[in-house]
């Protein structure tokens, strides 16, 4: 059973407020502001299996993170704040979105020095408003992760996430779990190479090109109708599609190059390939360029 979005929204809000109150009760540094401007190309933004349904598009995004740090004793810190993101998709304006949400994470370093590993546990909440109102959702994510610096130049970071999101339309809601690993290799004081790998399992949406048959929109490949889950007709992509909420497993792998531009700014060029298996198998290549600035 899926709860009404408003009920989930109030639970998340209460949780976030409680955590923020806990953080505010101890001495805190901040606010620290980080902004990220990103241009992204996805060659299969529809997550379609093949044929006419595979459409590519650019998105432009801007994220601002405002956070505070609080000491919780020896080698333990609490980070809390809010993050907002604006995304514009010039080709498919229905995907334009704005998200805002609180986040809090606890971090403990197991020892002293740059080579001591650290662990983190966190909660993130966000409300996302899309131009296509039916996609608008609220989301809550539990995160756990850690990092280990192998030497001055190489650091391994891992994180696991479990999330639930509830949209205005059932097709765009769901739950998922996932894990990611990142290897940062600083080949010089300026240049960083990133190797990325990830796994995600849970609900997702795959879009199938549709045709008008017998007075109704149906997918061109009718076999998908045998899959369990919700589906409906969408007009987000300027041509007829049916969107299916499916159980989808995704493996991701990628590489990035991140040159530093001074102490507070860096550029990030990244390519990630997402291989997914829902009812069908499909891929999505994502190339992005970002500028990150920490004030």
């Amino acid at each position, binding site marked *: 059973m899926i709860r009404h979005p408003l009920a989930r929204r109030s639970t998340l809000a209460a949780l976030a407020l409680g955590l923020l109150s806990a953080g505010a009760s101890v001495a805190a540094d901040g606010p620290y502001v980080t902004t990220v401007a990103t241009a992204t190309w996805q060659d299969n933004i529809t997550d379609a299996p093949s044929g006419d349904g595979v459409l590519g598009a650019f998105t432009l995004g801007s994220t601002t993170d405002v956070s505070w740090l609080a000491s919780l004793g020896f080698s333990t810190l609490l980070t809390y704040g809010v993050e907002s993101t604006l995304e514009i998709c010039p080709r498919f304006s229905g995907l334009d979105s704005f998200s805002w949400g609180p986040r809090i994470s606890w971090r403990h370093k197991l020892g002293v*020095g740059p080579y001591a590993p650290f662990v983190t546990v966190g909660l993130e909440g966000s409300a996302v408003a899309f131009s296509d109102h039916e996609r608008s959702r609220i989301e809550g994510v539990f995160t756990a992760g850690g990092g280990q610096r192998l030497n001055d130049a190489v650091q391994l970071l891992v994180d696991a996430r479990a999330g639930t999101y509830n949209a205005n339309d059932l097709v765009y809601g769901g739950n998922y779990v996932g894990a990611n690993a990142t290897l940062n290799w600083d080949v010089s004081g300026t240049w960083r190479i990133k190797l990325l790998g990830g796994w995600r399992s849970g609900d997702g949406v795959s879009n199938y090109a549709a045709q008008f048959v017998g007075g109704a929109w149906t997918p061109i490949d009718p076999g998908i109708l045998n899959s369990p889950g919700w589906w409906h007709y969408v007009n987000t992509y300027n041509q007829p599609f049916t969107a299916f909420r499916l159980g989808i497993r995704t493996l991701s792998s990628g590489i990035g190059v991140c040159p530093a531009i001074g102490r507070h700014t860096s550029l990030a060029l990244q390519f990630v390939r997402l291989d997914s298996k829902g009812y069908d198998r499909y891929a999505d290549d994502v190339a992005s360029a*970002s500028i*990150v600035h920490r004030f």
Partner: protein
Amino acid sequence: MRRLIAILTLACLCRSAPAAGIVRVVTRDPAGTPVADAVASLTLVGSPEALTVPKEPVAIVQRDQEFSPYVTAVVVGTRVVFPNRDTVQHHVYSVSAAKKFEIPLYIGDAAETIVFDRPGVVTLGCNIHDWMVAYVVVLSTPHFAKTDSGGSADLTSLPPGRYRLEVWHPRLSAKVDRELTVAEHDDTTQVISVTLRPDRRIRRAPDAGGADYR
């Protein structure tokens, strides 16, 4: 008689305090570029000299999430304070054999003063901001100096004698250790060619992944 007393007094003074020498150490890399922040020290061979410990503590400041100065040279027994002039807390530590200590998260003036009571090189860090690094070179000789931006360091007031000259730098690839003799009124220049390893400090610039700490 007065003249005789004056002559004897002058003779005694000259005997008890022979004219001091000066050694200028100039450090350059193989390309001829001056090397700053190198610590040059001269240790009298065979007879340890008395050390004068500064009455006031030496300060290593944290500002803009960096230590300043990057390299500090002190004599054994010197007290060092670590004022934090940032708006963010720092956790200063050392795991070096010459001095292990930690000052857990603080802001402003730390309550603790650290006494560097053994000779050696002490690497400082911040347990929150991994890119922050600085060095304290603790010496058991009163004769030392740090090279300036021109790669030059003057060691003055050197009694005549035989000395061991050592040069240390955080990125030095090979130890510099040589002997030299300082005579009265000496004013010599020692040009030291040093090879430096690449500067492999932990990167500070942010990352789009957001995993960096701040």
